């Protein structure tokens, strides 16, 4: 589904991704862990097409397409979704209007008819239930004045609505209280399917108790330096990242 090979990316003169490889098959959940500043969000941004990064080497292929050649909206239209580490506030842009514009843009790109107001609202209600979100949030401006946890839940709510093929969750767990974490994890799990893959970026083992990953990768200094099963996360929780670093250097 996603194949990243030798990816290098700069911000200005600074190289952040330094030759990164990642293979994700349909239905798999991959956790990416790693120290602050390692390049996890940079990877999410480069994959989703945010401006300000220069790819200097490597490739990213998604569902057979050259991902890096597509505009951000085109990437979303073929099924990529990024749950932002820091969701952006859009003052004055009504949340319902936004969700409808997003969903209908995806449908249009796929050659499907736009949803009318009634079917859209029915769909929204259904998805709201999954995430236990207050529908008052729908009447407000996108993320504007939302609490940290509400913003994160709103991201997963959008994911539930847009039904991507590959979702990248960038630290969706940080800032969530224990109950909200549970709700978000349940929401994510409800979306797991043999066709849908996920990249879950997190610092905490706790999330991975709820969302069980197929693989765990350690991203440090712009590279995946170690990959393993879900037991790797437990090991990291216990020992930190230091031991791999030194091991990596020794190898």
């Amino acid at each position, binding site marked *: 589904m996603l194949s990243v090979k030798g990816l290098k990316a700069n911000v200005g003169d600074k190289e952040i991704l330094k030759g990164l490889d990642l293979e994700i098959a349909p239905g798999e959940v991959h956790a990416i862990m790693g120290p602050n500043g390692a390049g996890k969000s940079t990877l999410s941004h480069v994959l*989703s*097409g*945010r*401006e*300000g990064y220069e790819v200097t080497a490597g490739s990213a292929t998604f569902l057979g397409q050259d991902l890096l050649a597509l*505009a*951000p*909206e085109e*990437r*979303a*239209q073929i099924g990529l*979704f*990024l749950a*932002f580490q820091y*969701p*952006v506030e*859009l*003052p*004055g*842009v*009504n949340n319902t*209007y*936004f969700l409808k*514009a*997003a969903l209908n*843009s*995806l449908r249009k*790109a796929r050659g499907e008819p736009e949803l009318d107001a009634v079917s859209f609202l029915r769909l929204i209600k259904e998805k709201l239930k999954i995430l236990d979100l207050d529908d008052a949030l729908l009447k407000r*401006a996108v993320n504007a004045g939302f609490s940290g946890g509400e913003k994160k839940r709103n991201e997963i709510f*959008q994911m539930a609505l*847009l039904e991507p093929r590959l979702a990248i969750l960038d630290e969706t767990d940080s800032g969530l209280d224990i109950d909200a974490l549970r709700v978000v994890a349940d929401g994510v799990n409800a979306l797991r399917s043999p066709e849908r893959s996920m990249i879950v970026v997190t610092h905490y083992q706790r999330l991975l108790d709820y969302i069980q990953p197929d693989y765990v990768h350690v991203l440090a200094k712009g590279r995946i330096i170690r990959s393993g099963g879900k037991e790797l996360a437990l090991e990291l929780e216990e020992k930190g990242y230091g031991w791999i670093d030194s091991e990596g250097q020794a190898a």
Partner: protein
Amino acid sequence: MSDEAFTGFAGWLAEPSDPPVEGRPDWLEAQCSLARERLAGLDVPNSKTESWRYTSLKGLMEQDFARAGENMTALQSDDLEEVLIPGLDAYRILLVNGRYLPELSAHEDLPSGVRVAGLRDLIANEPDLLRTHLNAVAPPDSQPLFAALNTAGMDDGLVLFVARGVVLERPIELIHLSVGLDEPRVAQPRHLVVLEDGAQATLVERYVSLGDSIYCTNSVLELALGRDALLKHDRIQMESPNAFHITGLYLTQSANSHYQGVNIGLGASWSRTDLNCRFQGEHAECDLQGLYLAGDRQLMDYHLDVLHSLPNCSSRETFKGILYGRGRAVFDGRVFVAPQAQKTDAAMSNRNLLLSEQSEVDTKPQLEISADDVKCSHGTTVGQIEPEMLFYLRSRGIGASLARRMLCLGFADEVVQRLSSDALRDHVSEQVGQRLESAPMD
């Protein structure tokens, strides 16, 4: 310069072919001739005139406008359908090229205590009703050029009286419709709105056109609010893309009165709006909001003049602009707080979104404060669409141009929300969206 220039306005005042306003009482005749005399002594503003520094009158002066008069068009009710706002339930007053058209107006069944009439009719039939307020809010001996022109050429307009304590629930919609004529015409509508003590009303004032001809509207409004009165006033300028539009709004507020004005500027190639507020009693509140869009070959020029001469009044001046193509705007806001006006609360802001490199705004908010115990602030911003916001929308599959439009509408929303009804909010959002859709985004 001024001799030559003045011939440019001669046609504005020349007696129209139809008979002049009949039965004009002496006091009014005296006021109009005072304005005429004053005009003779007024220079045409140029770039050295402070309030016209950024706005040239050249294009206006080049036009040889003749005065608009009666019966210049045979308008059908179907023509009107085109400019009505779906879902807006209001009493309607229609002016066509400056003249009140009772046949296509609809203001029957007004509650008692509310009077709606054409100015021309009142001058002819009940001039005494006008005596207290006409030319009193904006006295002819201090009117600037365009207001003086309007007074000198006074013809027709809306007169609205709301008697003491009367609350008018349903809005009054004033539609000023310009219909293209063979030669460029200038209409000089003159409106008078008086709310007596405790009266409440909503006025929706719209400038629209059929076709895209060249014409000029030079309107003057006098608004007098009594004690505890409340006026909601939505103004939507959607003149033809080739039109010139001038507004001089003069407002006086008695104690505890509230004025909520929302100025939407979308049309005309050249437009100039002067909003003047004077307090005549304490604890009055004046809220002036504005949203303007200017694209290619468009100029939007706003001047605010709010004078706090008494204590305990508050004023808000919140104007937002979206500029694209080679659009230009001017915001010149002046709030003056006199030494005795303690406890004044005034906040002025002007924020602009520039969508192109060639667009331009000159913004000059001025707070002149001579009192020491006041709460006053002002701020301006001139910026572009935030790349972060744009990326967020695009990452959800929304194409770049729709995403930009959504963000512009989001920016405008704060002002749009202040309009008095959903019907108006939808109308304005739709009009803004349409203009942005055809706007070049670079």
